[in-house]
Each structure stands twice: as structure tokens, then as C-alpha cells.
């Protein structure tokens, strides 16, 4: 009976294992293989714009192109005029500050600080022609620059310091006849160069993404799925999905990996359990700035040094700027490991006029969240640190006027005079300037979302689940297996093991010794 029972048990176990093994080899399509089929298939435009007579007549002003576009696509320009791309601000609820209109128009940062006073230069990246901060400009639909986003010819570019007007070399007819869905080139022309140079701001958005390999970005890889920005940043009525917490504060309108991949994308359920508290990006973007360096530290207090009365630049051995008279000193980083934060999708911002405490780094933006917050997950973040100008008497950050159209207009990049730049800049934003300035340390938090690595390169378990120097070493408020332990339990445990071992050794040793002592006696007795 017993033998039969056990052989049946064994047989059952073997059968079970075989079944499990067979199940894994199934060749059914997975959600991921479906996505890989879906996205590389490019749609063909339904019309050929080069055949339309409206686009063949000679354009002398870019606004005429817009007029031609909206003669068919009527109502579309108005959609753009409701977008953040156009307004450079939107209403956002900020915890403790209420509902405020915030955006590039009025938010300060610790890169080029802010646009006020430098509009001519900064608005090269505005989706309009000839930016002026007036109602007349913002309500004229002909000022909408359709080509900046819809150029498919790859020849469109905006002129520098012309407030968003196209470069004179651009053939507007050629571009207008070759329009279509926005490409990575269209988006990247502005978004890869924020902060005044390639990869300065984001760290995960840079010119390498025009034509990246899979190792740089699995989604955008030219040798892979070759996804375009708008595949994820989809739009309804020109309202793009996606946002950046340098200028946004609410948990809405976000692009989420889960939209395509679901919240349980791994075969291993232990990994799936992580998705409750760990954002996809945390493991799947092990490093950012993979190809070209990004700015990590920007010290404005060094700016203004001149050689023979002239501004100069210094580069390091890789040809990266480390000093510029107009901007100060920088530290760059390549293949940077992100810092990690609990983040629930809401943020706060330094708003112009807010009082600062100059004894510690000023947080230009604050990402909210902690372990106990059900909406918060661990996110990878680029932290950009800097030193920037503030009013030592009124205790708030100063918006300096940087761009200089002509000498003597106060623009720092022409006159190199902080007092004058502060005066002119603060005049622009209607805040008093005391005449006394200093430099304060600032920090800015940029969640890292792009440059997703192939899965083989994902962050491995022990990079976080480790006693010392793990990636999450500084993240508190929760128990992380492999990293955390209770010191007294550890002491108790090791103590009890040592005592047991000592007991065994002593007891066993004594038994051996006693036996040897008894042995001669026993031998004698035997004789």
C-alpha cells in the first residue's frame, strides 16, 4: 500500500513539473510582441500636400503659410492657441498656493533662470511667429507656427534671436508642401536643446535621440521600433499628453508606461509586485545622459569674468564648456545614475516673489510623496543644482535680464553688470529690486522618463537590495529587504548563534576529555 501511495505521489509530482515546463514554451503572442508589431508600422499620409495649389503660391511671410494651412484645417489654429505649447502657462493647483497660472512665461529655473527680459532669444522655441507678451499677439491665429511641429522635410528651422520667426534660409513653400505628423526631429529641435544647448536641461532628451540605437533608447531606436515622440505623447485637438514637473504641479495628463505595458508586465510575479511602489523608469532607466553629457551644476556667481575686457569660454578635454563669461561655471555628467525620490505626481514651485531662506539650498520645485502615500512610487530624478542671483534684502530670487540686443540695455550677456541686469529683469516682472544681490544655492528636480534601456540592462536586484551604498540608500520611511535590518535583532541573533556554537564546542570537548580520562580506568579494570 505504502509503496503504491508514494510512487503515485512521485508520478503526480513529475507530471505536474512536465506540465509546467510545457506551459512556459507556449508561442502565443504576448502583449509586448503585439506592441512591437504595432508601432513600427508607419501610416502613409492620406493626401499629398505638394499637389495643393494653396501651397504652391510664393510665401513672403510665414503668417501666409498659416493662413494657407487653416484655409483647409479650419479651427486647428484655435486648438493650438488653447495649448501649453502656445500659452507657455496653464492653470495649475499648487498645494499651499492655490490655483495659479504657471509655465515658462513666469516660472524661474536654475538654468537660464527665466525668460523675462530675454524673450527675443528664448521664444525662438515658441510655436508662434514674433512672440510679444501682448494680447494682440496671443489672439492672432496667424501667429501660430504650424511648420515648427509639422515639418516633415527636415529643413525647417527658426532664426536665433528673432522671437520665433523662421530662419531666412528656409524655403517656406518646400516645407509647407512636405508636412505631416510631427517627427522626433520636429520635437527635438526645441526639446533636446532646452537650457541653451544639447541635453543641458533634461539629461534624457538630447540630439542622440534623433537617431538612437536600442542601447540608448529601446522605444526610439532607429534600429528597433523607431517610435516617434507623438506615439506616446498623443494629442487630442492639439492638447499634448505629457508634462514636465519643472513647470507643472498636478497629477494629470501624464504619459504612463502602463498605458501600453500594463501594471503587471513581467513574467516573474515578484517583479510585478514592485510596480505598486516602484515606477517602471526606476529600474528600466539605469543611467541617463548616455551619449552626451548633461548639466548637473551651474554656478552663475562665476559669470562675468572677462579677458582683456572680452567674454571668453573654457572647455574641458572632451570639448564641453566648463566656463562661459556669460553664464558662469558648469559641471556636466555622462552616464549619470539618477537620484531617487518618492513621487506622487504632484509638485510645488518657487513662484516669483516667494521668500527664500538663503542658509540652505532653495528648492525651485519640490516633488511630493512618501512611502505611506498610496499614489507615490519611487521615481528616478535628475537633480540640477546651482547657484543663482537673489535679492539679499528682499530675500527672493532675482529674474535678471540676460539677453542683450544692444550694449547698455542692461542685458547681462552684453553689459556683464549684475546690478543692471537685476534692475531691468525685475522691472519686467514688476517686483522691486533692493540694489543688493547675492548668490544662493538652488536645486531643481527633473523626473527621468526617456532613454529606457533594453531589459537586459535594467537595474538588478542587488543594486537596491543591498546593505551598503545601494541606489536607494538615502530613501527612508520603509523596510527594504536586503538593505534594512533591526540592529538589536541582528545582535540577538548573532549572540544566540555564538552561544549555541560555544555551548556545543564546550560540551562536546568536555565529553571527549572525560571519555579519555575514563578510558585508562576502564582498561585497567578490564585487565
Amino acid at each position, binding site marked *: 500500500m*505504502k509503496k503504491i501511495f508514494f510512487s503515485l505521489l512521485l508520478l503526480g509530482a513529475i507530471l505536474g513539473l512536465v506540465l509546467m515546463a510545457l506551459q512556459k514554451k507556449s508561442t502565443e503572442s504576448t502583449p509586448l510582441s503585439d506592441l512591437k508589431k504595432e508601432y513600427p508600422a508607419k501610416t502613409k499620409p492620406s493626401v499629398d500636400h505638394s499637389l495643393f495649389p494653396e501651397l504652391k503660391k510664393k510665401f513672403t511671410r510665414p503668417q501666409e503659410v498659416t493662413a494657407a494651412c487653416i484655409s483647409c484645417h479650419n479651427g486647428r489654429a484655435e486648438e493650438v492657441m488653447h495649448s501649453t505649447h502656445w500659452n507657455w502657462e496653464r492653470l495649475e493647483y499648487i498645494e499651499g498656493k492655490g490655483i495659479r497660472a504657471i509655465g515658462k512665461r513666469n516660472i524661474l529655473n536654475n538654468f537660464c533662470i527665466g525668460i523675462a527680459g530675454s524673450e527675443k532669444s528664448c521664444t525662438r522655441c515658441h510655436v508662434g511667429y514674433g512672440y510679444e507678451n501682448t494680447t494682440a499677439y496671443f489672439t492672432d491665429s496667424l501667429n501660430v507656427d504650424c511648420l515648427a511641429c509639422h515639418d516633415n522635410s527636415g529643413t525647417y528651422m527658426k532664426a536665433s534671436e528673432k522671437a520665433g520667426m523662421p530662419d531666412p534660409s528656409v524655403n517656406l513653400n518646400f516645407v509647407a508642401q512636405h508636412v505631416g505628423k510631427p517627427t522626433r526631429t520636429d520635437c527635438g529641435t526645441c526639446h533636446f536643446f532646452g537650457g541653451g544647448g544639447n541635453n543641458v536641461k533634461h539629461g534624457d532628451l538630447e540630439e542622440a535621440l534623433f537617431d538612437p540605437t536600442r542601447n540608448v533608447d529601446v522605444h526610439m531606436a532607429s534600429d528597433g521600433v523607431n517610435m516617434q515622440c507623438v506615439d506616446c505623447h498623443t494629442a487630442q485637438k492639439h492638447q499634448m499628453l505629457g508634462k514636465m514637473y519643472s513647470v507643472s504641479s498636478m497629477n494629470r495628463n501624464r504619459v504612463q508606461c502602463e498605458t501600453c505595458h500594463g501594471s503587471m508586465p513581467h513574467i*516573474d510575479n515578484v517583479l510585478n509586485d514592485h510596480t505598486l511602489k516602484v515606477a517602471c523608469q526606476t529600474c528600466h532607466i539605469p543611467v541617463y545622459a548616455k551619449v552626451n553629457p548633461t548639466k548637473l551644476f551651474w554656478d552663475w556667481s562665476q559669470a562675468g569674468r572677462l579677458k582683456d575686457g572680452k567674454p571668453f569660454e573654457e572647455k574641458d578635454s572632451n570639448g564641453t564648456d566648463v566656463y562661459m563669461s556669460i553664464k558662469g561655471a558648469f559641471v556636466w555628467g555622462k552616464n549619470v545614475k539618477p537620484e531617487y525620490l518618492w513621487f506622487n505626481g504632484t509638485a510645488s514651485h518657487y513662484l516669483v516673489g516667494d521668500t527664500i531662506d538663503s542658509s540652505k539650498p532653495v528648492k525651485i520645485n519640490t516633488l511630493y510623496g512618501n512611502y505611506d502615500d498610496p499614489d507615490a512610487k519611487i521615481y528616478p530624478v535628475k537633480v540640477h543644482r546651482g547657484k543663482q542671483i537673489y535679492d539679499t534684502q528682499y530675500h527672493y530670487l532675482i529674474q535678471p535680464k540676460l539677453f542683450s540686443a544692444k550694449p547698455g540695455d542692461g542685458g547681462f550677456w552684453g553689459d556683464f553688470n549684475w546690478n543692471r541686469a537685476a534692475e531691468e529683469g525685475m522691472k519686467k516682472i514688476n517686483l522691486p529690486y533692493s540694489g543688493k544681490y547675492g548668490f544662493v544655492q538652488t536645486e531643481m528636480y527633473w523626473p527621468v522618463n526617456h532613454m529606457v534601456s533594453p531589459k537586459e540592462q535594467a537595474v538588478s536586484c542587488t543594486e537596491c537590495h543591498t546593505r551598503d551604498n545601494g541606489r536607494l540608500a538615502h530613501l527612508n520611511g520603509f523596510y527594504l*529587504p536586503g538593505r534594512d535590518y533591526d540592529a538589536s535583532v541582528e545582535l540577538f541573533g548573532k549572540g544566540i548563534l555564538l552561544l549555541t556554537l560555544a555551548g556545543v564546542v564546550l*560540551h562536546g570537548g568536555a565529553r571527549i576529555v572525560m571519555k579519555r580520562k575514563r578510558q585508562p580506568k576502564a582498561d585497567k579494570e578490564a585487565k
Partner: protein
Amino acid sequence: MKKEYVYRAFERFWHWTQAALIIFLGVSGFEIHGSIHFFGYENAVQYHNIAAISFLILIVFAIFWHLTTGEWRQYIPTWKNLRAQAQYYIFGIFRDAPHPTKKTVLSKLNPLQKIVYAGLKVLVIPVMVVTGLLYMFYRYPQKYEVLSLNVKSLETIAVLHTIGAFLLVAFFIAHLYLITTGQTVTSNLKAMITGYEELEGEPHEKKIEPEIKEAALSK
């Protein structure tokens, strides 16, 4: 002195499977804890979970066996001879004194063993099973917001599980040593492998299986 069939097939299977599982759980568990590096973290987690489920299945069978055979009574703690047994380990064993309690098929455990094994069975193992299951299925906050199931921190669960693990390792060390304190140094080990042990006193006829009896008689 008679050779008796002390440990039956299932009991030996249970003992050795449990031993292997506990060693395996210990090694993989302390890797998850960050104390050692052996399998690699991801493997350790996976193996630990598989071993844990195997252990649970084994426990279910063991409980069934103990209840149906009545063997669970072996583990009821007793004061009788407790002091004598302790004195034996402290003094008698060095003087080659006889064991104060006779091991019989109906009473395999001495009073100290009864206490320790009962403690393991009603305290340590249940704590390990409960904290282990909580650890395995821990999610904060709970899905569907079942607030009563919300355990805010893994810390309590993990700390209890760690204490249990240390106790089991200590038990394991002591157990290995105490094996050598039988009639001879190896008699306990042999008994748990073969099932047979030389016991003092009269053989317990009823417990001997017919074929064994025959074999014994033919000698």
C-alpha cells in the same frame, strides 16, 4: 537491547525533507536578508518562495500524519524527569551515566526534547509560516483598499521572520550536536536513516511489521 522499528517511512521522509527545506530556506533566506551571497538575489527570492510552498505542503501532510497516527501525543510537554534529563546533560553524560529516560517506540522523546519540539511546532514554525505568508503577499496599501488587512510596514513582519530564522539556525546547530548524544555517537543518526534503533528493554511487539519480525526471528 532489542532492535526496534522506531521511525516509520513517512516520519523519516518528513524529517529529512524538512531538514533539507529548512537548510535551503535558511541559506536563501539569509541571502534575501543581506547577510550572505550565494544563489544571487533574484534566484534566492524565487527559490525561497518555492521552498516555502513546498514546506507548507509538507506541513499539511505532517499534521495529517501526526493527527491520524496519534503521534502528536509524543510532543506533549511533561515535568516528569525534566530535571533529571537536564542534570544528565550537565553532569551524567560526562560520567557515562545511563540516560534517565528510556527511549521506547511509544515515547521517543525525552522531556527536554518534548519541550523544545513543542515550542518549535506551536511557536516558531507557526510564526515563520504566518510572517512568511504575509511577507509573500505583502502589499501596501492592500488591493481593493481592504483597510483591516493594511499592514503599514513590512518591518514588523520582517523582524519577526528574522528572529524565527535565527532561532531555527540555533536549533539546527544544537540539533546536529545532540544527535551524537545517543546510545552511541551515531545511533540516533542511523535510526533516523534506517528507522531501526537498539532500544533498552523489551521490544514492542505490536509496532514491528510482520516481515521485519520474520527477518528478526530468522536470525
